[in-house]
């Protein structure tokens, strides 16, 4: 099992040739090992550029980037890229190769033995929920958009990278498939502990996936925070408007029953709800007519939630 890498940006700046403005400007950011960090912002804000500086597809003009305290410019760029997973919106599966050959690319570049590669390919297909026997020998043109993106994810993590870069990987698939892929991505990177940088312009996607969100504008970081912190206390009007901080309904799915519970040891009757359920579920029950719900953790009641508690929590007053 691969543990995630720590990625540190120190005053990282990029200026493309023929432009008079930095594409990213003085970005300082610590990506914690194993976290799923979402870079969010409108097109042209520099989020893709920032992503591509990590594996040196885009060179820094100023500043530095370190992976586990090693400056990336001290590493051979080709070796660096093989050590970091890479998945993009257009997927870019090699159309003259089978699904198995596509997934095997990085392991084969790294010179893994044949049987180890074959075993790894099957393991990965199963991980992204594609049946190995059915999909191994397919051509990319015979895959649906969702299937192609699953193969793209499998290819990106094939050589057990400790960091994964994803540039709007689910931007081209429909909403249902996207939700499915998001759930599975979270499951996979949690399971592997891979540090993941994920670029998107889709606010819902960011709120849903992120451990922390980085909001960018004109090449600069506007705010770094957890989805909930950002919804409750956006750093400025730009962030508030971008993520829809005024929309308190949005916060319901971010918050757990545990966050709103009024702890008490007095036994009360009522609908029981797990401490990890979201406030959306709690509110459903309350709107159904219950005066309060009983929150249970590990089968033991720990307290109750009523309307006032839900309200106080989503307004950030608790």
């Amino acid at each position: 099992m691969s543990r995630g890498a720590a990625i540190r940006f120190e005053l990282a700046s990029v200026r493309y040739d023929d432009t008079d403005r930095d594409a990213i400007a003085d970005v300082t950011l610590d990506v914690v090992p194993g976290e799923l960090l979402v870079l969010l912002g409108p097109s042209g804000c520099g989020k893709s550029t920032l992503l591509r500086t990590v594996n040196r597809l885009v060179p820094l003009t100023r500043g530095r980037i370190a992976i586990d305290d090693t400056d990336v410019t001290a590493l051979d760029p080709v070796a660096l890229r093989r050590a970091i997973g890479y998945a993009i919106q257009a997927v870019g599966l090699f159309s003259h190769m089978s699904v198995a050959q596509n997934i095997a690319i990085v392991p084969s570049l790294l010179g893994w033995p044949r049987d180890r590669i074959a075993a790894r390919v099957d393991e990965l297909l199963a991980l992204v929920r594609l049946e190995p026997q059915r999909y191994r020998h397919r051509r990319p043109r015979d895959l649906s958009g969702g299937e192609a993106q699953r193969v793209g994810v499998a290819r990106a993590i094939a050589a057990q990278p400790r960091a994964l870069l994803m540039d709007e990987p689910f931007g081209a698939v429909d909403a249902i498939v996207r939700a499915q892929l998001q759930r599975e991505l979270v499951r996979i990177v949690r399971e592997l502990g891979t540090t993941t940088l994920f670029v998107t312009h889709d606010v819902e996607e960011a709120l849903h996936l992120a451990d922390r969100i980085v909001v960018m504008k004109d090449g600069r970081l506007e705010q770094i925070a957890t989805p909930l912190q950002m919804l409750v206390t956006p750093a400025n009007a730009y962030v508030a408007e971008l993520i829809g901080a005024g929309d308190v309904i949005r916060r319901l799915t971010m918050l757990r029953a545990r966050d709103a519970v009024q702890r008490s040891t007095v036994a009360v009757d009522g609908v029981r709800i797990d401490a990890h359920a979201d406030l959306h579920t709690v509110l459903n029950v309350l709107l159904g007519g219950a005066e309060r719900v009983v929150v249970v953790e590990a089968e033991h009641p720990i307290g109750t939630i009523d309307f006032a508690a839900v309200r106080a929590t989503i307004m950030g007053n608790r």
Partner: protein
Amino acid sequence: MTYLTSHAARVFALAQDHALIVAAALLVALAAAFPLALVIVRRPRTAPLLLGLLGAIYTIPSLALLALLVRAFGLGIAPIFVALVAYAQFMLVRNIAAGISGIDPAQIDAAHGLGMAARQQFVRVELPLALPVIVGGIRVAAVAMIAIATLGGYVGGEGLGTLIFTGLTLHHDDMIVAGSLAASLLAIVADGALRLVEHAVRR
């Protein structure tokens, strides 16, 4: 047709020489065309100049070019060989460059981002994906070269042109017909064979 039947072995031998000259010239032409095409792909700004130059060579009437080359290289195989290589450049460079430039940019980005070195990217991704277009260029070039190679007979080169030009000198129409027919047949066979290759590499 009488010459073709009475001298079948000689016509066949000349056709073999003809094919050999074209094949050898094609190999040399390809060796020159690949680096030129890569220059165009990596630095698109050079495309108008390079393709313009090669296009200009392509438009020189073959007889005129041959006359110049005979002054430089003397009679024999050399002038026609050089002419064939020079004419093929335009068709080959254009198709190789178009084949590589036409590749889905996402596949190039993926190759780069996953950690292929430049050479691996060329051999494993760019070349196989561009191959159908490249083979198409080779096919068109080969057919044109088979026709142009008959002019070799005029300047002392080997090949089916010998029959045509000897026939002209001797007013021996049958020889002319035999040479022309054999050259046409050769072109048709080359075209068909390379079409099959083109189809096979289009995966």
